[in-house]
């Protein structure tokens, strides 16, 4: 791994070089009076915002909220199906956080399983992750409890960490990261003595994720436990949609009598419609069963199948929940449950 130094004032020239190379830059920006920051295409006039947390993770750059996967049309008595063009322009996600970048592993596990999801694969291959270590954390952050950390390099192509004095230590972690450096090599300086100590936030470990994992199978049938955990849950999709790991989607058609599109849209296990059968039966008929599913999937099933939990501790669900269903509190209660 190569290490360089980058001055803060070199960020704009670096963005310019990325843009001139034909890459699309997706980066956090403010959006009017809206809370937090939002990932948007960063044009030359747009202002990069590395201060606020983004309401959504950069997940939608890989799994868009809505995406056409094929088109169909009537031609005489035939139905003709056309593949949709895959939108996978060379892209740099600039200003991701270590937790969000780490979350790509879980998305890879889901979408790069055989048969690979071509839409995801192409976009993933065309995207470079430039991540900034977190210098501050808030009380909803718990990355260190689920295997990550504020300076975690996992999944990043370039990791920029403050070394104080308006300078960033740049870890060049992959060939894609190296390509970025080579676009503007004059901006990067060699590291000197004592300049390799990154300043990162302190995020204490809050619970034992292996205890959560071990207790869940025995808690599964404890209806009372799940009911208590989820009394406040309103059954919206906010937690799933702000989550960098959630990957469930729904297929919808939009069509008239002549032609139409098949679309993939985000979906959420918190909605009662998620499991509603055509017969009218719903195997998850109440919210406590849906909440249990959310926890079981992330911390038990996903680990059994993929060897990792489906949570990076970004805390977005806790911040966004209209009923303050704090995930950290609930996981702590699971880790400490007597079963």
């Amino acid at each position, binding site marked *: 791994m190569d290490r360089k130094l980058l001055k803060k004032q070199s960020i704009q020239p670096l963005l310019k070089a990325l843009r001139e190379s034909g890459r699309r830059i997706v980066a956090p920006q403010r*959006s*009017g*009076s*809206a*809370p937090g920051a*939002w990932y948007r295409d960063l044009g030359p006039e747009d202002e990069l915002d590395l201060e606020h947390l983004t*309401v*959504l993770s950069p997940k939608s750059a890989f799994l868009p*909220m*809505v995406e056409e996967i094929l088109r169909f049309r009537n031609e005489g008595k035939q139905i003709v199906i056309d593949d949709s063009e895959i939108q996978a322009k060379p892209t740099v996600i600039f200003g991701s956080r270590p937790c969000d970048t780490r979350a790509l592993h879980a998305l890879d596990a889901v979408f790069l399983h055989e048969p690979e999801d071509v839409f995801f694969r192409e976009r993933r291959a065309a995207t470079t992750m430039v991540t900034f270590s977190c210098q501050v954390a*808030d*009380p*909803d952050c718990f990355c260190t409890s689920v295997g990550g950390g504020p300076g975690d390099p996992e999944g990043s192509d370039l990791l920029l960490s403050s070394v104080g004095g308006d300078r960033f230590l740049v870890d060049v972690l992959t060939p894609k990261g190296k390509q970025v450096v080579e676009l503007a090599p004059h901006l990067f300086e060699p590291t000197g003595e004592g300049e390799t100590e990154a300043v990162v936030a302190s995020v204490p470990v809050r619970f034992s994720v292996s205890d959560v994992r071990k207790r869940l199978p025995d808690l599964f049938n404890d209806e009372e436990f799940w*009911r208590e955990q*989820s*009394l*406040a849950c*309103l*059954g*919206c*999709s*906010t937690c*799933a*949609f*702000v989550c960098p790991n959630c990957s469930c989607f*729904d297929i*919808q058609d*939009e069509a008239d009598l002549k032609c139409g599109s098949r*679309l993939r*849209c*985000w979906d*959420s296990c918190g*909605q009662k*419609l998620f499991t509603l059968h055509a017969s009218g039966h719903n195997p998850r008929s*109440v*919210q*406590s069963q849906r909440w249990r599913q959310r926890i079981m999937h992330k911390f038990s099933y996903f680990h059994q199948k993929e060897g990792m939990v489906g949570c990076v501790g970004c805390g977005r669900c*806790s*911040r*966004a929940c*209209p*009923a*303050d269903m*704090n995930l*950290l*509190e609930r996981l702590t209660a699971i880790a400490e449950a007597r079963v």
Partner: protein
Amino acid sequence: MQVIIGYAKGSNGRRRPLFARTPEQLDQLTLEDNPGLNLAVYLRKPEIKRLGKPGVVATPAILRSILQWAAENHYQDSEAVFLALDANGAVVELSAPDQIAAFVASLPDGLVPSQESTQGKDRAARFAFWQQEFERCIRCYACRASCPMCYCDQCIADSNQPQWVPVPPHALGNFEWHVSRAMHLAGRCVGCGACSEACPAGIPLGLMNKFLADVVLNEFGQRAGATTKLDYPLCVFNVKDREDFIK
């Protein structure tokens, strides 16, 4: 009362609903002037119903919601007890719709959200405003889930045969969803602001509801959450209704 539903201090500066079933749990109760979350939604949740008869620590917004439910035949007399503070700071217990209506009539009319962002703007500017706001909508339906008036078992947005409202969060789908919801709430919204508060994208949805509430008030003289009986203007036929708009 088997459960007291109220507000409690939440995590990291937030507030949360409390479902107290023991006297000790009651110690966590807090009084909130403008809590955002409208606790009335919990009265329709199966797991909460199972807890037994509820007492609800009621803000004016909650009481207005219950009145609107009563007007829509959606509230059974003495289904719940509402604990409210009167002008002297004493706790009063309310349950019958007429009781609630009398109490609400004694309250200052302070529930209306500001309309600054759209007021005085022409149609094109309002359209541009909402286009920009809806662009952030992720269709999580937190607005619907947090709204006491969104109590339909099956929402039009959940129907796919036929599909009334496009499901995806694209520009058309978002407009259709929010405009449909606002129309369904016209003259029914009590202005509690829970939808705006719940929205993770900070979309000021209450502005649309307030606008339509004003239209219904001006055109039909009705205001939601004020009386126990209401001939809902968008559902009744009246021979005196104007027809001059039919060309």
